[in-house]
Every structure is written in structure tokens, then in C-alpha cells.
């Protein structure tokens, strides 16, 4: 049982115009590393980085800007590269930053952010399970939704879709013939 | 003030036995016309010693049917109907009109399954009878088979000494209260054996919880009885009820009866009732059989009529517990009003003692069921905390109050 500490003092409402400030701060700190940065709509900032800068950006977001809530980690298979999208949200001002981290196709590894946000634990396991991206530094990277001995990563584009796929026997799914 | 319908159960059974033997003897003497030795058989059957033995058998059968058939069915029906009405639904509705044979299948244009629901429990019992009695392969077979028998037989043992009126009893013992409490306390033993012998983690946990809970609540039970004995001076239930069969305060022919619940023993009454509800393993104290966590608790591995026995005897223990509370605190079978008409010296009961007793017991069961189905379940460590840390000091207080008021002559 965790002891009941003091909950943070929150306004509960979004601060208008904050997204431009946040984008400006990110751009000023990570000038060249930001491959793409824009304000999509009020309360949503989108940036794209390479996978090596992930921990730096995330640490800055969490420690300096107060983005304490990791909402989601998405793994995308773009056929020529992978992408790991992080939606981080700020409870103090209601802003969300969408971080696209690009991963080369033949080396699907990226650093894990579980040390910053424990919420990443299950999301990264799911991304590994369904897409096959390895999160280095994850405390326990094993399959979460599929059975432990499943051989494939089904969300990849080279795993046949249901309309293209005839019945696959269980033996074949486990890697046999 | 009130008079039993059956002044002497033994005599009534004796008359019944004599009648049965007489009918059987008619047949035997008819055969004896052809084969002479049968006449000796008829004479032997009609002799006093045989009649006495047969009377005891008939007596025990009648008491068994009365308790474990009629009363059990009625209380089960009361509970199921009552709590389903609490839950805003109709409840069990299978009655005689659902039977598929004449004369009950004449209701062609009216609903057949919308009756009072009394036969539902009979139907459930028959369903359980025709199910397979499975024994888990890795269970301790001897203990597994013995424990339902143990629980059932010790519960029925209570009714040997528990009278239903001043004439309707099996045995009149001097220390009947002690005997009843002892038979009541056999249950944790049987439950623990049942839970352990099934070789299942969950039933073992349920059995141990049951043993801990029942043991913890025996103590306030007995302490309250001790407090009561200061007032009654005897452990004989007949004497206890006889002492309550008078008026405390009279307004003409009506008045407040001298039941022990209206005396300083009220605290003992409350403690005794709470402890008894815990002994009966009803919600809020039904952690041993907690459906939420342990499926059926210690009875999980039982199937068929073994389960039926164990399941049904929970209600029988409820009847025994309610009967005990009634006898000790609520005046037993003495009715304060509408008691008797004396016509020419013969007392004719309007509401005889048996009816009073049944009314009180069934009403108490209704109250227990009402509470049961309105509150959530208490956790096992909280149950034990209540038992050891709250009920025992209060029952000690009840003893002090009882002894004190008696010594000071206030009561």
C-alpha cells in the first residue's frame, strides 16, 4: 500500500495559448534535433525526433515542463521505418505533446521511458508484443496480450491481414510447419 | 398461561404405535388362522416392551419429520420469498399447481408457475438427490464422506433436547441447555474436517476461517448463558420457560410478560443474538462460505445430496439458534394473550403453545434474514476482532449486571 501523500494542486482547466510556449521552449533547447515541430490545434503540440534523443526530450518534458502523465505509446509500422509515438500530457495546463520517435526498420530498438513514467511499463510491453520493437531498459519485456509462446508480431504489415489470410493452423503459428 | 396442543408427545406417539401395531396384528392374526405360530408373533408385538421400543422409533421419526422436513422447508421458503421481495422481484413460485398430474393439472387457462413457491425447495432437494456424488481423487475419502454426516447428525442432536412446547419434546433432561450448547458447538469440528479433507486450497482457507469464527463466537454465547443462569438458577429449559410464563406488569388480563428480554438481561439478549447470527454463518458473518471469493467456501467440493445435507443444515442450525434465543429470552412457548378458554375445567387452547413457539421462531428468522440480506459481508479479521474485543467485554458486563441485580434483590 502506498501511503497517501498530498495530491498536487491543480486548476483543472486548460491554460489557453500554452502550446506555443511549450513548442518554443522545446525548439530553443533541442534546435537541430527536432526534425519537425508544429502546433496542430489548441492544446496539442507535435514534434518528431530521432530515437537517440528520446530520453533527453522526455526527461526535459517531465522534469522541467511538468508533463507528468504518459497517456499512450503507439508503435507504427511505416514499411520503411518504425515509429514510436508518445502522447504525454500535462495536468497543470492541459497541454499534450505528441512525440514521434523514428526508428530504422532493420534495427527496431529504442530506449525505454519506464524510469520516467511507470505507465510506460504496460504500453511498451504491448508494443513489443504486437509490433516487435525492443525497448531497452524495460524491467520485464515479455508478451502481455498474446500467449507467451507466440512466434510472430501480428501488427506488422508483413503479417497477413484477415482478408488475405486463410486459416493458419496453431502449429504453424507456433513456428512449426 | 398457555397450554400445549400435545400434552404429552410420548403418550401421543404411544397411542399411534398401538394403533399401528393393532392394524399389523389384524393381518398377522389373519395369517395365524392358517399358520398357528403367527399368533405368538402377534402377542409379542403387542407386548409392553416392544410397544415402548416402537414408540420411541415413531417418536423420533415424527420429530425428524417435523423438524427437518416441515420446519426446514417452511423456513427456507420464508427466507427465499422474503429476500426476493426485498430485492423487488417475485421470488420462488413453484407450488402444487406446477405438478403435472391430476388434480393439479387442471389449470389450463391460468399460469401454473405463479404460485406461492412452497414446493420449490422440495424440487431442489429432489434435484440434488439425483446428482452424482463426486469425490475429488486426491481427497481424504473417509473424512470427506464422514463430515457431512457429522454436521447433520450433530445438528439433529440439538433437537433431542430442544422442546417445541411443554409437551412436544423427545427427551426432558435436567441439563438440557448444556446439552444443546454442546451439540451446537460440534459444528466447527465438522466444518474443519470438511474443508481440510477436500484437498483444495480454497476450501481449506474457508474451513479454517469457519473454525476461527465459530470458536471465537462460542465464548460470548456461553458467557451470556452464564449471565442468564444468575436469573434462572437452572439449566433446564422447561424451568426457564416456566419462569417466563407470568406477567411482569398486569393491566387486567393483559400485561407485559416476564420474558427475560424485558429484564436487565437485555444486554445479554443482544450479545447472544449477535453471537448466534455469527454461529449460524449468516451474512454479515458468512466469510467461511463467501461466494465472492471462495465460490462456495468450505463446501465447494461437495456435490449431490452431500452438498444438499450440508447446505440444508445451515437452515436447520438457524432454526435451532432462533429456537434457543426464543426459549432463553423471548419466553419460549408461553403466549401472553389469546391463550386458553376453560370450559368446565378443561383447558382448550385457542393459540396453543406450539403455535406461539413457531410464531416466535419464524418471526425471529425473518428478522435475521432481513438483516442478512441488507448488509455487506464483514472481513474475517474484522469478524474476529468484533468477537474477541467487543462481544466478550460486553458479555462480561452482562454477567456483572445479572449477578448484581440478583444480589441486590432488584429482580
Amino acid at each position, binding site marked *: 500500500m502506498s501511503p497517501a501523500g498530498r495530491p498536487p494542486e491543480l486548476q483543472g482547466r486548460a491554460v489557453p495559448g500554452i502550446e506555443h510556449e511549450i513548442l518554443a521552449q522545446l525548439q530553443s533547447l533541442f534546435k537541430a534535433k527536432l526534425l519537425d515541430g508544429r502546433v496542430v490545434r489548441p492544446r496539442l503540440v507535435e514534434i518528431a525526433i530521432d530515437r537517440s534523443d528520446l530520453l533527453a526530450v522526455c526527461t526535459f518534458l517531465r522534469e522541467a515542463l511538468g508533463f507528468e502523465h504518459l497517456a499512450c505509446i503507439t508503435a507504427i509500422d511505416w514499411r520503411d521505418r518504425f515509429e514510436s509515438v508518445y*502522447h504525454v500530457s500535462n495536468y497543470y495546463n492541459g497541454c499534450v505533446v505528441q512525440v514521434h520517435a523514428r526508428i530504422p526498420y532493420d534495427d527496431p530498438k529504442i530506449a525505454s521511458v519506464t524510469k520516467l513514467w511507470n505507465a510506460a511499463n504496460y504500453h511498451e510491453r504491448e508494443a513489443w508484443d504486437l509490433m516487435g520493437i525492443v525497448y531497452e531498459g524495460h524491467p520485464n519485456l515479455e508478451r502481455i496480450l498474446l500467449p507467451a509462446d507466440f512466434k510472430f508480431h501480428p501488427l506488422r504489415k508483413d503479417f497477413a491481414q484477415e482478408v488475405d489470410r486463410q486459416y493458419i493452423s496453431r502449429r504453424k503459428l507456433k513456428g512449426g510447419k | 398461561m398457555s397450554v400445549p396442543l400435545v400434552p404429552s408427545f410420548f403418550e401421543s406417539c404411544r397411542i399411534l404405535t398401538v394403533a399401528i401395531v393393532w392394524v399389523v396384528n389384524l393381518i398377522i392374526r389373519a395369517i395365524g388362522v392358517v399358520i398357528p405360530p403367527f399368533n405368538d408373533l402377534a402377542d409379542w408385538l403387542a407386548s409392553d416392551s416392544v410397544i415402548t421400543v416402537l414408540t420411541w422409533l415413531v417418536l423420533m421419526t415424527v420429530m425428524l419429520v417435523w423438524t427437518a422436513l416441515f420446519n426446514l422447508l417452511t423456513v427456507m421458503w420464508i427466507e427465499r420469498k422474503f429476500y426476493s421481495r426485498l430485492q423487488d422481484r417475485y421470488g420462488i413460485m413453484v407450488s402444487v399447481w406446477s405438478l403435472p398430474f391430476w388434480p393439479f393439472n387442471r389449470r389450463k387457462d391460468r399460469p401454473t408457475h405463479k404460485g406461492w413457491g412452497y414446493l420449490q425447495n422440495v424440487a431442489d432437494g429432489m434435484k440434488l438427490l439425483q446428482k452424482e456424488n463426486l469425490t475429488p481423487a486426491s481427497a481424504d475419502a473417509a473424512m470427506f464422506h464422514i463430515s457431512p454426516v457429522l454436521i447433520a447428525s450433530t445438528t439433529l442432536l440439538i433437537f433431542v433436547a430442544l422442546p417445541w412446547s411443554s409437551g412436544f419434546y423427545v427427551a426432558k433432561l435436567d441439563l438440557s441447555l448444556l446439552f444443546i450448547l454442546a451439540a451446537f458447538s460440534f459444528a466447527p469440528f465438522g466444518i474443519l474436517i470438511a474443508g481440510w479433507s477436500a484437498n483444495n486450497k480454497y476450501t481449506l482457507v474457508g474451513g479454517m476461517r469457519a473454525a476461527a469464527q465459530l470458536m471465537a463466537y462460542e465464548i460470548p454465547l456461553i458467557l451470556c448463558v452464564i449471565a442468564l443462569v444468575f436469573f434462572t438458577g437452572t439449566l433446564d429449559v422447561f424451568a426457564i420457560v416456566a419462569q417466563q410464563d407470568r406477567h411482569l406488569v398486569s393491566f387486567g388480563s393483559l400485561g407485559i410478560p416476564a420474558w427475560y428480554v424485558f429484564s436487565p438481561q437485555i444486554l445479554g439478549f443482544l450479545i447472544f443474538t449477535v453471537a448466534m447470527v455469527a454461529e449460524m454463518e449468516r451474512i454479515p458473518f458468512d466469510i467461511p462460505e463467501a461466494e465472492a471469493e471462495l465460490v462456495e467456501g468450505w463446501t465447494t467440493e461437495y456435490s449431490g445430496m452431500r452438498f444438499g445435507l450440508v447446505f440444508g443444515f445451515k437452515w436447520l442450525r438457524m432454526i435451532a439458534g432462533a429456537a434457543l434465543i426464543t426459549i432463553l429470552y423471548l419466553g419460549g412457548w408461553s403466549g401472553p394473550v389469546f391463550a386458553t378458554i376453560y370450559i368446565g375445567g378443561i383447558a382448550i387452547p385457542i393459540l396453543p403453545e406450539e403455535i406461539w413457539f413457531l410464531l416466535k421462531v419464524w418471526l425471529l428468522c425473518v428478522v435475521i434474514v432481513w438483516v442478512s440480506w441488507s448488509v455487506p459481508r464483514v472481513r474475517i479479521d474484522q469478524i474476529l476482532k468484533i468477537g474477541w474485543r467487543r462481544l466478550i467485554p460486553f458479555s462480561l458486563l452482562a454477567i456483572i449486571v445479572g449477578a448484581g441485580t440478583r444480589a441486590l434483590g432488584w429482580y
Partner: protein
Amino acid sequence: MNMGPQHPMTHGLWNMKVKVDGETITDAKPEIGYLHRGYEKIMEVREFQKNVVLTDRLCYVSSITWSHAYCLAVERMMGVEVPERGQWIRVVALELQRIASHLMWLAAYGPDLGLLTALLWSLRERELFLDLIQLMSGARMNQNYPRVGGVRNDLPDNFEAMCKRSIAHFLEKLDGYEKLMHESKVFLMRTQDVGRISAADAINWGVTGPNLRACGVNVDLRRLDPYETYEQIDFEPQIWKGADGGDSYARFVCRFNEMRESCGIVLQALEKMPKDSPFRTKPPRRAEGDGYARTEDSRGEALFYVIGDGDDRPYRVKIRSPIFCSMAATPIMLRGNKLADVVAILGSIDVCVGEMDK
């Protein structure tokens, strides 16, 4: 010790491995995935609108909220603006579905603690709202009601009258339930101080929704990140005020009071709705881009991230389920409690396995 996957009182199909020392829990490890249906993969094969049938069944107890979140994400990707009446109708549908979902939770939570009467009473009240939803959309569950660009049909004529009557009746009954639960000593004994999680832990592990508000954190996505017409509605997010939040009782109270708030929102929405305005626009067939929407689902933050590549089907759909993250936080809530409390704690976080396992 295994609790589940076949267990009468863990609602849904999942397993909890609990390490016990006597009666006290030392560690817990949830095992999920028994209901994994491969949603994200199969949603890539169907057109945008046809996926609403699937998203309904993600959490079948509160289906409109999930389909609405998906439609919102697709609309943001396409840049489609829902007309005002459509937005108001969506708000009404969402709040009715929220009440129905919370009543289902209450119906499951009472028996967890041993209070079997709560099951029947809550389901009886839920019938009122299922009838309203049926009047509105034609089905009681899995209604296929939200559309990309609005809703499927307008509210029928007698909806407002029937809604007001049902809500008035329900609010009366809620007072009765308060007496049954809030003031019952045994209930307080079973839920207070049980399954505590601190606010910092909750935010760190991604717990959202009523579970987070019970820890005292003032976050309600309808206020913090408003969507539809929630900015024009006056309601109060139910936050636990007081020092000792984060236990099962706080979660219970927050969810219970949310039902009352939702009734108020529905009545306000029926007043403020424009009477003649379209309820639906036609979205484009093909779309490119990415859209992301997060809504306050009955259980927490439901997030959809939809990517289109110019085809009439999505390229990738990501579903973020609030229970998926709360499940990661359950070991914290369970450690140090007794074995008999497992069901009480897990019931109070309102697990719906359909959305957890996708």
C-alpha cells in the same frame, strides 16, 4: 495463488497471481490477454465508418463512449466539424451511457462485498436508462450510434419528456442507495483504508478517471481538455476532498456522485440544445493524416490515435484503455491488504476486460 481466470467475482476474464503470507498479500501480478481480439489489426481492414461497430464492443458496458472517442479521432484527422445539435445529442448519449455503466459497476460491486441486494436494485435502475438509450438509438447495448460527423439519428419527439421522468425517479432512488451503502457501518469497514494508492503513484502509473479523482487529483478531461459542448455545461467534477483519499471508499464515492452529476448534465443539455440544426454532416470518404482524441470515459481516459494514408480505411488505429493502465497499478493497491479484500479492491477500480485486452 491464482484468482481467476475462472472466478465468479472477477468481472471478466483475467487472472491475478497473488502471493500471500498467511492472509496478507505480499505481491500481485495481473495476467491479461485472455480476451485479446486483435482489434487494432482488424480495424485496418474496414472503412472508417464500419469500425464503429467494432469500437462499440471494446467495452460493451459503455459502448457509446468508446465509439464516440473513435469518431472524434477520425473527425480530427479529416478536419470535419460536427454541427451543434449533433454535439449536444452526443453529450446526452454519452452521459446516459455513463450512468448506465456506473450502475453496472455498482451492480457488480455490491455482491463483491456480500451485499447481494445491490445487484438487483442497480440493475432495476439501469433498465430505466437502457430504455432511454433504446428510445434514442434503437438498441440497449452496442448501439452503433455515433457516426463520423454526428450521430445516426435525431432524438425522437417524446425523448425529452421520458428522460425527465426517468431522471427524476432515479434521483429519488439514489438517495435511498446512499443510505444503504454510505451509512452502513459494515460497508465502511470493508472499503475504508483498503486498497490505498497515493496521488503521485497514481499519476506515475497512468491511472485516470474516477480512480484518479479519488486520490484528490483535480483532473476531469471534460474540464481539462473539453470536447463537444462540455465548455457550455455547468457541472462539477467529483474529486475526493480530504487528506485520506485513494482507498476503495473514495473511489466508490466519486463514482457514485458522478451519477448524480451526469443526470444534471443531461437535463442541462436537453435545455440548451438548438431545436433545429442538422445532427450530422457527411465526412469525406478518404483521408490522410493523423487524428488523436482523448475523452473521459466511464472508467478513465480513453484515447484513440488514428492514422490515415489516403485510403478509405485507417492505416493504424491505437486504442488506449484506462483499465490497461489501472491494471498495472493494482499491485500497489493490493500489497499489504488481506486476501479477502482482493475482490473488494479490484471491484472498486471497475475492470472491464473488453477494453483492456482489445
